[in-house]
């Protein structure tokens, strides 16, 4: 057994940390989050040059062929720097959906371009009902003579407004089950496809409403066979969930680091505040939250890489734990900084808001605890 990272992974961590410190410092994050796109072509190109846009894609699609455990390292560093932009939405949601569900031709068309940074694909799956299971997919795709007409609304779609194409989960058979869910790949500009950017608490993460008003497409727009979309979609979501947990771990670690540094230098009543047990003990609790978050996230990544039967359970345990932990840690960070932590100028709010957004992305702790209960047959 070896529950640690290897030399290549440590190297990736060092490289990524330096890269984001140089290329995506707090000033850059703040500048980009104020823009509708949340990313600059320049930064995106530089990330692409590192090979990270294809990190987990097979080499046959110009990827690096690495696993989720490797991705975890990169995501932790991205979380540490609260990197804005469509990495998550394009590489891990849209791109992975193409990889999991697409035909060979579709994969060959899209994945090398995503890896190169030339194209981006978003994933539209959640709807205003905010239901997470297959029953939440209500947008209809009515078939007639081999053509499909899509109607309905998608919500909480990451970066749809800057994507070149959207993977849309739709229902080709009425009902609430998994067997009627199909995935469609719709290029930007498809007639009847409307995208509206939504104001979000976490400005570093862009969410959209996507409306399909009688969008008419041919059968070639299907990603995989009709009616077989839920299985690949849930594989994508499990992977993205672990990647998100890793990003949250990185953010939580950064909040802890900032807080400890501040507690060493900030004086009150003639002593550094970190010497008071009221502060020290809360910092200790933060450390426990951060370390535990990493442990369960790393395990979930490993379990997915190994196709372990326990992987879905591990994913839900991770998301349940990390959702609560990052919220607690980022709130404690603000509290221990005092007034300065409540200012716009201090970076803490970026992490606090990221924690809140991430908490409800792919299911919150309550949702995943119930999934754990089901998976362990409570």
């Amino acid at each position, binding site marked *: 057994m070896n529950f640690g990272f290897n030399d290549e992974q440590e190297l990736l961590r060092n490289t990524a940390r330096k890269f984001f410190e140089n290329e995506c410092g707090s000033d850059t994050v703040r500048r980009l989050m104020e823009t509708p796109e949340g990313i600059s072509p320049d930064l995106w190109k530089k990330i692409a040059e590192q090979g990270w846009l294809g990190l987990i894609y097979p080499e046959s699609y110009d990827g690096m062929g690495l696993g989720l455990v490797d991705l975890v390292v990169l995501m932790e560093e991205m979380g540490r720097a609260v990197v804005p932009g469509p990495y998550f939405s394009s590489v891990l949601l849209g791109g992975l959906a193409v990889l999991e569900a697409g035909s060979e031709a579709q994969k060959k068309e899209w994945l090398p371009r995503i890896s190169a940074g030339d194209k981006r694909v978003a994933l539209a799956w959640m709807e205003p009902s905010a239901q997470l299971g297959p029953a939440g997919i209500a947008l209809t795709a009515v078939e007639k003579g081999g053509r499909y007409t899509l109607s309905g609304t998608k919500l909480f779609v990451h970066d749809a407004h800057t994507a070149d194409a959207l993977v849309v989960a739709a229902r080709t058979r009425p009902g609430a089950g998994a067997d009627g869910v199909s995935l469609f790949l719709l290029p930007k500009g498809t007639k009847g496809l409307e995208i509206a950017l939504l104001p979000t608490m976490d400005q570093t993460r862009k969410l959209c409403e996507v409306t399909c008003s009688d969008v008419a497409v041919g059968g070639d727009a299907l990603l995989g066979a009709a009616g077989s979309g839920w299985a690949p979609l849930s594989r994508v979501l499990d992977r993205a969930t672990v990647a998100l947990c890793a990003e949250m771990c990185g953010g939580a670690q950064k909040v802890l680091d900032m807080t400890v540094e501040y507690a*060493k230098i900030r004086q009150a009543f003639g002593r550094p505040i970190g010497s008071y047990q009221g502060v020290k003990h809360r910092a200790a609790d933060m450390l426990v939250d951060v370390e535990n978050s990493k442990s369960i996230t790393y395990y979930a990544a490993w379990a997915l890489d190994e196709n372990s039967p326990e992987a879905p359970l591990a994913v839900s345990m991770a998301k349940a734990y990390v959702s609560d932990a990052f919220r607690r840690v980022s709130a404690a960070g603000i509290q221990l900084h005092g007034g300065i932590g409540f200012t716009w100028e201090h970076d803490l709010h970026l992490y606090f808001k990221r924690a809140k957004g991430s908490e409800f992305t792919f299911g919150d702790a309550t949702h995943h605890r119930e999934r754990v209960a089901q998976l362990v047959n409570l």
Partner: protein
Amino acid sequence: MDFTLTPEQESFRDEVRAWLGRNVQQDWVARLQRGSDIPRPEAYDLLRQWQRRMYEAGFVGLTWPKESGGRGLTFMEEMILQQEMALAKAPPVLNILAIGMAGPTIIAYGTDEQKKRYPPKMLSCEEIWCQGYSEPNAGSDLASLQTRAEKDGDHYVVNGQKVWTSLAHIADWMMLLARTDPSAPKHKGITYFLLDMKSPGVTVKPLKQLTGDAEFNEVYFDNVRIHESQILGGLHNGWAVGLTTLMYERLALGFGLQVRLRIALDSLVDLARATKKNGVPVTQDPVMRQKLAQMWIDTEVFKYTGARAITKLLKGELPGPEASAGKMMWVEGHQRLQELAMEIEGPFSQLTHGSEWAVADGLWQHTFLRSRANSIEGGTTEIQRNIIGERVLGLPKG
């Protein structure tokens, strides 16, 4: 990153599993291990026999060197053993203070003679050990201890008192910290002795605790004579030696605690399945499902955080202050688990051993009450937070 076992480790696991399958009698679980805490007094004889059997099968002291009676294996095998013991709901090892603390400290600091004399009988449970650290005025502030050992020829004469001494009433030996140089700064004048509990002048008084049991004791020393050959690790060097023991304590507990939490969780889930609330099993109640699932998650998280610590150990790093986080997590988790058991039982949680209406003959009531000690014994939660704050995070001392 790799959680798979080598073929050798797999065959070790199979060996352990088969042996436990043949040797663990399930009624032991009901009799002394339904909860997860230190065994009740009536269980000592059973546990003594159990450790003896484990010892004869070669499953005690896996990581100890062969010349001390161990098997010279790694912490990986120790972890496999502990996990299999959890799965089999096996009783714990009784002489845990010897196996987890006194033994490794003697192996680290002992003379050749000491290393030959003590460890084998620890493993076989022929000699039980207790730990003479805490005093009425030296708990968290251990270095303030006042028990004195004054030189008299080639002996030391010990006077003073220890308290909260688990197992002292059945122990043959004590790890004793006593002040040998009252004029030195408080950390510098302490010596670590190996004390024969049958020495004249040693009085053990059971201390009745809030559970009603007397599982730990007060120990009084009235001109107790100890030969200087019983010093471990050198005169006035007791603080360093004692800290080594504490480091091993957290390590040993870390392995054991994970198992105990898992056993307790399994029992809790059984309890929840068997208990009805508003006509349906507690496991079907949405609020209780959330709490049970969180317990499950926290138990698993604890396991994987432990696995990361073991990875460091296997790479040759010594257990560091991070172990304090593990102790804290266990305490919080276990106390919450016990409170959850009371919540599941509802009004029946008020009934104890002796009532026909008591659930599981009041075992949960006992473990619930006992769990309050968890955040005090082995270093209070407040002290663990200080250790994490100062030695892991580098915050200034108060």
